[in-house]
């Protein structure tokens, strides 16, 4: 009877768990770097060709005057590929998101070059699609939708999520749309966050009158215990008040 019970439990797990294990996490942080560094693997080489979406987020402390370039290198079915992300001396963090294909048994590396100010941070995060053995599946997610809204939230903010007790990396997917209309009232959305150096960051998108959705995909580094919020407003003045019907969806992957 005990073996029957075990068999039943194992069978149930076997049926239920694969849906959880499809997505794997890629995470490699380079914190408080005072020098550039040479090519460093960001994950274990896959045993078969694999697809990933990768984000890079490059930051430096306020008043640091570095001009650092991060270069991600990988090999796909066609050969060697690379992508760069640079931060200038304006102190604003930079982020990018892009898909890559990685050939089996090849390395994905990141390196930096340029001039370092006081220090800099680089976060490489990503999701692997059905690529076993290159990461783990401990991804978390958050969602915030404003569906069929007819008012600007301005001046009030809506919380998308609050970061836990440690600084963390996230990938955001944002969409705002309003049905095609002949009016002139365009609704906009800002995502408000606080980075690891306590700087306030704003990412903004505005809907289109022809009904085409406005989309943003970007990585964020969020200071421990701070909230990531959204606010919607009219592109013209006043920023508050009744609006055309619009939809906002914000989805977040936490690494």
């Amino acid at each position: 009877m005990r073996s029957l019970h075990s068999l039943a439990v194992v069978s149930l797990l076997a049926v239920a768990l694969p849906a959880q294990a499809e997505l794997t996490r890629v995470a490699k942080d380079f914190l408080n770097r005072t020098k550039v560094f040479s090519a460093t693997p960001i994950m274990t080489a896959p045993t078969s060709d694999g697809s990933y979406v990768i984000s890079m987020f490059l930051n430096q402390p306020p008043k640091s005057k570095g001009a650092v370039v991060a270069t991600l290198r990988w090999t796909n079915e066609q050969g060697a590929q690379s992508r760069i992300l640079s931060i200038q001396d304006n102190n604003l963090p930079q982020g990018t998101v892009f898909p890559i294909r990685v050939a089996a048994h090849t390395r994905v590396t990141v390196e930096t070059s340029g001039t370092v100010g006081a220090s800099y941070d680089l976060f490489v995060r990503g999701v692997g699609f059905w690529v076993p053995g290159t990461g783990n599946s401990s991804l978390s997610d958050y969602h915030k939708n404003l569906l069929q809204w007819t008012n600007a939230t301005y001046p009030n903010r809506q919380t998308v999520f609050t970061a836990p007790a440690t600084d963390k990396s996230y990938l955001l997917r944002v969409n705002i749309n309003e049905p095609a209309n002949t009016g002139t009232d365009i609704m906009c959305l800002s995502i408000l966050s606080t980075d690891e150096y306590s700087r306030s960051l704003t990412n903004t998108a505005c809907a289109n009158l022809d009904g085409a959705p406005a989309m943003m995909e970007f990585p964020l580094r969020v200071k421990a215990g701070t909230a990531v919020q959204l606010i919607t407003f009219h592109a013209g003045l006043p920023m508050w008040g009744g609006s055309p019907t619009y939809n906002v969806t914000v989805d977040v992957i936490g690494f």
Partner: protein
Amino acid sequence: MLRKLLISFLAILALLATASASLTEVRQDFLNQTATFPATNVMTSPSADGSYLITVYLDQPAGGTVVAFVAWTDENGAPQQYQAFDGSGVFAVRLQAGTALTVATSGTVQGSYNLFVDGVGFWN
């Protein structure tokens, strides 16, 4: 015995409910294609309006001019399209319940090409 099974079943259900079940995977590979193809479903249509982060990645030899078009219907019933001019891209999709997310290719094929459409579905 039955009680034990029931308890185990409920425990597993509880475990699954608290796991990150709200992220689902989208994956459709088109390998070694020697011709362009018409609109083809990428995944099963959702039963409720859904949010996705979709990536497109096109590998083709020099000389090929294949372009991929991803098309869908948004929650307002409006047709939308993303064209991966430079071969790859990441974009957000709101997909109306019961409608399809499709991909099609056009252009000149040089030898063969691979197209990968991947993504994450977000569910509350």
